């Protein structure tokens, strides 16, 4: 079962797109996501897909074209990073508000200024209120698998929301890993056909899309959108269960690594979670009971489950590869602590480490430092500073 291959994150993403064979791909290049539409356009040129490839003049146009295509009834995909995502900003809201299940690969890269082509999460975090489902991927396998599940999640009639699958730029996108692919016929059977209820190219039931709403109706549309995002959590788990039956690979809302008997925990997204797990193993050998939680689903934010999973720890550090510049803490920290407080989990002490901005290397030593800090907090009950930067030259 499965095909063993060695691919980079970008190659795996483009390969997944080939297997999915969407109707339209409209994309504009930006480092480090360029290879996704680049490899995909080779498949188009070779006649290996039926996709209409639209080489647009900007990322704003890329998302516009995807919206037009999706509204017409086509399955539309794109890929971008950093300022490319930022250029699409108004259209992200239009895609979600219009309830169009576009799927996008977001190859995480730092937002300018200053200009930086390396990985951090400021791009997708900056879009966290745009109404898109956000899935985060630790490695090439997860990036590939999340891409295969994305349409089943977004196109579900109880959801009908766009999905962005995030992976770390360069670290994951350009790193070749051994991965297991699913056979194309199985992918096509799993992903299925896009069958929208409303679409413009429907002669039997012609519709108009993109209306004006006064204050008399906008709020009801947004309430509906909120319900769709609430439903997404259930659908994500259902799709993951089907995916497990297909591949044997299990996905949930977040991964819990050695959490059963731990007193302290680091919460961290994407590739750094891999390093954190390595450090956790090393420290466990020294008898230190440390754990890692790696969120996969950031939107919708799994408030109940995260609060429940974190309630048992004495000290938690949320590592953020983006800063909200709110003088208080990064986006993941804000979401996690808000979830805990809302659910009445007041026990654990929670601190924040902003790390790796602009692709600054995050080392095993840094993570070990954080774990030791947490162990100290667990013993003493004292927190000296909540909002911290690690890895910056002081």
């Amino acid at each position, binding site marked *: 079962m499965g095909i063993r291959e060695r691919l980079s994150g970008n190659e795996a993403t483009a390969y997944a797109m080939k297997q999915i064979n969407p109707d339209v791909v409209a994309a504009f290049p930006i480092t480090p996501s360029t290879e996704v539409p680049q490899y995909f356009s080779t498949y188009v040129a070779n006649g290996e897909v039926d996709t209409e490839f639209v080489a647009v003049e900007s990322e704003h146009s890329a998302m516009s074209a995807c919206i037009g295509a999706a509204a017409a009834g086509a399955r539309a995909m794109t890929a971008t990073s950093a300022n490319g995502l930022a250029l699409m900003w108004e259209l992200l809201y239009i895609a979600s*508000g*219009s*309830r*169009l299940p576009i799927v996008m690969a977001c190859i995480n890269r730092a937002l300018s200024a200053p200009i930086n082509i390396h990985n951090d999460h400021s791009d997708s975090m900056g879009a966290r209120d745009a109404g898109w489902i956000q899935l985060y991927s630790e490695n090439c396998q997860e990036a590939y698998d999340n891409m295969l599940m994305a349409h089943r999640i977004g196109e579900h009639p109880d959801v*009908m929301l766009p999905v962005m699958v995030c992976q770390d730029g360069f670290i994951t996108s350009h790193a070749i890993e051994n991965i297991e692919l699913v056979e194309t016929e199985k992918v096509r059977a799993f992903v299925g056909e896009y069958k929208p209820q*409303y679409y413009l190219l429907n002669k039997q*039931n*012609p*519709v*108009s*899309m*993109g*209306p004006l*709403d006064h204050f*008399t*109706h906008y*709020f*009801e*549309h947004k*309430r*509906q959108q909120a*319900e*769709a995002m609430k439903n997404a959590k259930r659908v994500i788990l259902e799709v993951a269960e089907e995916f497990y039956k297909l591949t044997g690979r299990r996905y949930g809302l977040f991964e819990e690594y050695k959490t059963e008997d731990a007193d302290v925990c680091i919460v961290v997204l994407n590739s750094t979670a891999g390093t954190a797990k390595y450090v956790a193993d090393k420290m466990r050998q020294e008898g230190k009971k440390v754990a890692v939680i790696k969120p996969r689903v950031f939107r919708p934010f799994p408030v109940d489950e995260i609060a429940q999973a974190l309630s048992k720890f004495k000290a938690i550090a949320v590592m953020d590869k983006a800063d909200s510049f709110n003088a208080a803490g990064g986006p993941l920290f804000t979401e996690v602590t808000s979830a805990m407080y809302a659910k009445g989990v007041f026990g654990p002490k929670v601190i924040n480490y902003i790390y790796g901005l602009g692709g600054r290397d995050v080392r095993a030593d840094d993570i070990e430092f954080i774990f030791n800090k947490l162990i100290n907090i667990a013993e003493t009950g004292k927190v000296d500073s909540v909002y911290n930067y690690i890895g910056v030259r002081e």
Partner: protein
Amino acid sequence: MKRGKELFASDITWKEITPGGVIPDAGNAEHFHTGDWRSMKPIWLKEKCKQCLLCYPVCPDTSILIDKDGKRVDFDYNHCKGCGICVKVCPFKAIDFVEEV
């Protein structure tokens, strides 16, 4: 799912409204009563009207309608915005122009 003028109802709930504001009907502009915006109102003086139909093509809101015999009928006050072009155009002073109350 609601359709037609039910979609414009000001008491439509979030469960009934169409997703993303999709409008599932064609030609539904008719349901929106732009006539509510009027501040001046044309009055058809039927006895003076010679049925020359000069008023009919100049109405920007298609609010002067023609019956099956090709004769104009009274204004569609649901959509007449009171621009007064028909008043100006009528050579027989068969259209009065008064304040909307």
